[in-house]
């Protein structure tokens, strides 16, 4: 079956492959040409035929940075006093589980966070619960244990340094990082 991909998706995939990628493959660097005579040639994809075969990106990990892909979404937010992955975030977690099952060399670090109220160590443990919740969901979806590490930053690295409910809500969060990104 041939799948027609919109031009924008093809373009995004091609550009994504050329942009700074995670260190799975060396990124290709465009060499600057001498300015004088020859006009600089840009890399442009040829216009796609109406029914082109899907072009798989050369670097599978490039998908992780594609803003159009659920894989570029890395944050799972939690309600107050809650340590379960809400339904809203299931599609994101599922997208990452599919990626990890397809790319078995990929590894994720899930960093859990807590809002600022309370002791550093108890909040470290609460943040861990959030990371564990995402890890458990990934495993239930078939990802292997050795591809996932769940850790906590507690309240030590708040995304929002404020002291109100909006800030606290932003900090009750688990982040998915792929090895090579940190």
């Amino acid at each position: 079956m041939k799948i027609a991909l919109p031009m924008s998706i093809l373009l995004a995939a091609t550009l994504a492959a050329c942009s700074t990628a995670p260190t799975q493959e060396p990124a290709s660097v465009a060499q600057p040409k001498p300015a004088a005579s020859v006009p600089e040639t840009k890399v442009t994809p040829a216009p796609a035929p109406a029914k082109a075969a899907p072009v798989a990106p050369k670097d599978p990990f490039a998908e992780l940075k594609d803003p159009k892909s659920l894989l570029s979404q890395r944050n799972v937010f939690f309600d107050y006093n809650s340590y379960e992955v809400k339904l809203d975030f299931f599609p994101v977690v599922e997208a990452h589980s599919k990626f990890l099952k397809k790319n078995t060399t990929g590894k994720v670090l899930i960093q859990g966070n807590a809002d600022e109220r309370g002791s550093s160590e108890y909040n470290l443990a609460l943040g861990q619960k959030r990371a564990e919740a995402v890890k458990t969901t990934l495993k239930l979806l078939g990802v292997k244990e050795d591809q996932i590490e769940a850790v906590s930053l507690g309240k030590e690295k708040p995304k929002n340094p404020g002291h109100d409910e909006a800030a606290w809500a932003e900090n009750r969060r688990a982040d998915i990082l792929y090895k090579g990104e940190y």
Partner: protein
Amino acid sequence: MQSKSSMQRRHFLLASSALTLVPALARAELTVEISGLGNERIPIAITVFGGENVLPKPISDVIRADLERTGLFRLVDAGDQPMADISRPDWASWRTKGADVLLAGSVKRLPDGNAEATFRLYDIVKQAEQKSAVLSFRFELGRNAGHWIADRVYEQLLGVPGVFSTQIAYVQKSGRHYMLQIAEYDGANPVSAFTDDEPIISPAWSPDGKRVAYVSFALKKPVIYVQTIATGNRQVVANFKGSNSAPAWSPDGKRLAIVLTKDGLSQIYLVNLDGGGLRRLMQSSGIDTEPCFSSDGKWLYFTSDRSGGPQIYRVSVDGGEAQRVTYEGSYNVSPHLSPDGKTLAYIGRNGGKFQLTVQDLGSQQTLILTDTVKDEAPTFAPNGRLILYATEVGGRGVLSAVSVDGKIRYKPLQGNGDIREPAWGPLAT
């Protein structure tokens, strides 16, 4: 008049060379709030020590500041001249000035280039010498010599060890930088033991005061390190899969209690200093964290939310059933046990306020010691008389202290940025 006390000749050596490293920027020290202190303070006259101008800072100034900072002494004006003969006090004159106790002394330079200080402590009421000693020290350690003398005076008069020669550790965050600082007991002269752009939490002193354990996030996850203060050498003690945190030293210095998530949720384990001999202490259905050994090494106090919310429990280090200790309020964390094992300090949440609280483990009576709202990380002075803790004033992280009965309070210790995570070091061995 014959002196009844023995002349003690002692060579004083600095315990750690960490204090020769580059000092950090914070300069403020803990200051006692004099208002509210009663007349139960001991009126003491501390004279200028003859010859003390050979030292960078007059030793009698250090002693006066130390003793006044306890809130237990009231300084009587001793004039600006040393006693002509420190062995012959004018009893009547000192009595008239209102002093119950007199400390006099002298300092001289030794042929080998070191300094020597002599002090005599007198009971003015009984007209008798209580204590005297001579100590020699390197010139640059004049401040430490002052602390040593203040310790001897404090012990003699109160029957409890002084803590003027002890150190505190804390974490200072300034901009993007985190610094593990080690300072004198009142916050003076801090020195950075470790600096990083990632957070540092939970510093914990070894019982001999030579090493400090802490948690660093340099590897994007919490990992436990132990660092030798004198050399700066450090080793990873725990980097298991998941989070590694909350190190606490056993009193014999051979093991750490730590919190790992390698088997799921946060649970307490014991591990040897070389990272081997890992043993899980309990299996609980919730979070177990913040272990703290009793001084006899037999019990671990810790925080657990197995009952639904965090409370403080204790368990034998051999394992077994944990006993719940705190019953008031729905959120009690960060236990720290007094050296004599009779009082538990912790943070209790009262109507949204996080406050330093003590519980008498005999009567189970509790007492809230502060009126601030974001208290954290209580740590007992090693003589059990004071509790140092972190709190927030004007939106900044600061340290403060309070006596265990709540009567003596201190103005906060501030620095550049936020100061948190205090840990009070042991008595000098």
